[in-house]
């Protein structure tokens, strides 16, 4: 076993799938010669050649459209959005075409659309977003947001092998900050399964992506005050692991839903609704959401820090909820 960063875990996952399955190929802006803006695809051109590592024009719609076409004739394309913010340019291809093909014709579209999402790196309003909520309301899609290197690798493999479109939102803040020993053997992380990152009795924080680490830090701090926090990492946003959500909600009776997507219409609202509908009788307090305010992601570092949920914010809200 070797220590693998989050970003290398993504790369290894794609690499291994490409080695294993000739129908797997990648396409995107600067993924070939340049090796990708963040170097996720570095070395792939040399290894797999220009037929399987395709530099494209700057058109996300064209990238996804081409991927869908290839998928419909039996390929398994992995399309990179240089920054996930630009996935909106491919919105129609994704929601009206990829997501609906199986429903209309029984034709699965096994594409992966992946890219760096999230803030914390002073990228400003066009390079820091979390677009999962835009796609959350689209039947036919799957959305994953890994937080660990293990999940990054296991989920990219699961996404590539999935017979339907999967949006893979990796978090750029975690790329080189998160690393772990990964098993040498092949493994996947099933889509739609959450992971319990910390067990606790007093309250649950349900989160995903980079916020998992904020939640864990907050849990450590809260433990000093005798508040025993459970942290559930959703890993997949669509479909939600409802069973895991309800299990932790019923266990602790107090729930915080935390994410980096902005508050209104964020995926957290759906988590809250499921709990309110299906675990109401187990609640011992209001379900609390923690998310950035409804503004674009600020460029200014102090403003961005204020915008993103910080450990101290989580600690403060958790204390209030624990005392409720």
């Amino acid at each position, binding site marked *: 076993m070797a220590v693998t960063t989050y970003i290398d875990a993504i790369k290894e996952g794609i690499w291994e799938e490409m080695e294993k399955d000739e129908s797997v190929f990648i396409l995107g802006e600067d993924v070939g010669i340049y090796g990708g803006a963040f170097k996720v695809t570095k070395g792939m051109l040399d290894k797999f050649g220009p037929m399987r590592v395709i530099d494209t024009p700057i058109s996300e719609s064209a990238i996804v459209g081409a991927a869908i076409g290839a998928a419909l004739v039996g390929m398994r394309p992995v399309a990179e959005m240089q920054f996930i913010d630009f996935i909106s340019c491919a919105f129609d291809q994704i929601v009206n075409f990829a997501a609906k093909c199986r429903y209309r014709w029984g034709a699965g579209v096994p594409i992966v659309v992946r890219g760096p999402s999230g803030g914390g790196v002073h990228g400003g309003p066009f390079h820091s977003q979390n677009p999962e909520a835009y796609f959350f309301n689209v039947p036919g899609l799957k959305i994953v947001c890994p937080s660990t290197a293990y999940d990054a690798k296991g989920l990219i493999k699961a996404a590539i092998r999935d017979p339907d479109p999967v949006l893979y939102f990796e978090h750029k803040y975690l790329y080189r900050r998160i690393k772990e020993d990964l098993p040498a053997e092949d493994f996947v992380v099933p889509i739609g399964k959450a992971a319990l990152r910390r067990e606790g009795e007093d309250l649950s924080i349900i989160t995903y992506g980079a916020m998992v680490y904020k939640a864990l830090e907050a849990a450590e701090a809260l433990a000093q005050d005798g508040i025993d926090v459970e942290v559930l990492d959703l890993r997949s946003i669509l479909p939600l692991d409802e069973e895991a959500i309800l299990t932790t909600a019923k266990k602790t*009776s107090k729930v915080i839903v935390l994410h980096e997507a902005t508050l209104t219409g964020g995926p957290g609202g759906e988590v809250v609704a499921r709990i309110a509908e299906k675990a*109401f009788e187990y*609640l*011992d307090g209001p379900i609390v959401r923690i998310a950035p305010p409804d503004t674009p992601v600020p460029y200014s570092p102090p403003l961005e820090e204020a915008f993103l949920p910080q450990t101290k914010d989580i600690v403060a809200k958790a204390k209030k909820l624990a*005392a*409720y």
Partner: protein
Amino acid sequence: MATDVIMPQMGESIAEGTIVKWLKGVGDNVDRDEPLFEISTDKVDAEIPSPSAGVLLEILVPEGKTVEINTVVGRIGQEGEAKSAPKAAPAPQQSEPAPAPAAAAPQPAPAPSPAPAQRPAQPAPQAQTATQAPQQAPSFVRSSPVVQKIAAEHGVDVSLVEGTGEGGRVTKKDIMTYIDSAASSAAPISTPAQPAAPQPAPAPQEAPSAPAPAAPKPAAARPAVVASADDVREPMSIMRKKIAEHMVMSKATSPHVYTIFEVDMNEVVKRREALKREFEKEGVKLTFLPFFIEACIRGMKEYPIINSSVDGETIIYKKTVNVGIAVALENGLIVPVIKHADQMNLLGLAKTAADLGERARTKRLVPDDVQGGTFTITNVGVFGGAFGLPIINQPQAAIMGIGTIVKRPVVIDDAIAIRPIVYLSLSYDHRIIDGADAARFLTVVKRELEKPAGV
């Protein structure tokens, strides 16, 4: 800011009232304390004064409709003021700039809440919140869905659980701690329901009473009730349920002990004869009752423990004596209270008792009339009983029953004489009153009643 007008509580056992007539229409100006609407309840009919001055903005409950007490029936505010948003739960306590008289205010008189007395040993690190909470929310305990669920599963009355959450809220942790500690101490956990409702003057004996605690779970299972086809099944009325609850609560709260004295009423008969005419001039029919009240007051002055209440582990000696008089009604009982009875002479007592009795029978009592009692007298002799063993009217400490006055042969100075004899029974809370105290008190009562007329 509009003021809510609520259906007042017209007696402890009264759970609902009917709006008979609105005396003001929407848009009418109304002064504070000006009669606003008429209501009718099981026991009392009354005109309800306005809680504040302003314009009647809204009538929420039309004439003829029966609603629960504390329901908001209308709103008073300033002209042009928007109708206020409906409140989800009408709070029994309203923050009015100037509280209306008792008729409109459901709050009890300053009598202590029975709550402390019947709270069993609690894991009470936050005694403060416990005593505050009931005052703020007489019959509403703040908790959460999971607490309600756990309470239902374990048969726990949430109002008994110490709330450590925000604003005294009972949290899941609180109820789990409570259940664990109750289990380890084998204490009953499902005792009184709603003990938090401060209800000053519940009725004695069968008197209907306030939202009162439910029965504690009996240790042994109650045998099943077998009803055959020709038996009649009748659901209890609300009043009957309240009576049942209060009586069970009282018995569960206070270990009752009884002492009975025989009193020679010869001298009282003489005094009554002598005063009868004089009282008639005042328009008062003199009964025996004022004599009993007077004698009891004298007894309580000498033995104040009789006129007391238990508050947790504290005994509260009442400064004034407010004597509740049980009055039988067609379908129950009510206990109007002679306030400051200890400051009245015989005429005052007679007048007040007659007035309260008359108004009780004609359903014209106002809520204040039935609140604040500190001791109760019930006349079991009215219906021929030699004596009765009444149940204490919580949170009072004692109740006296008066039997029927019967001429009996008694031995006086070794001769047999015929004397009007009455049996006085005192039921008292043995937690604070011992047999000797009760006997001393009754000795004074007897002495007062038997003292020679003319003295």
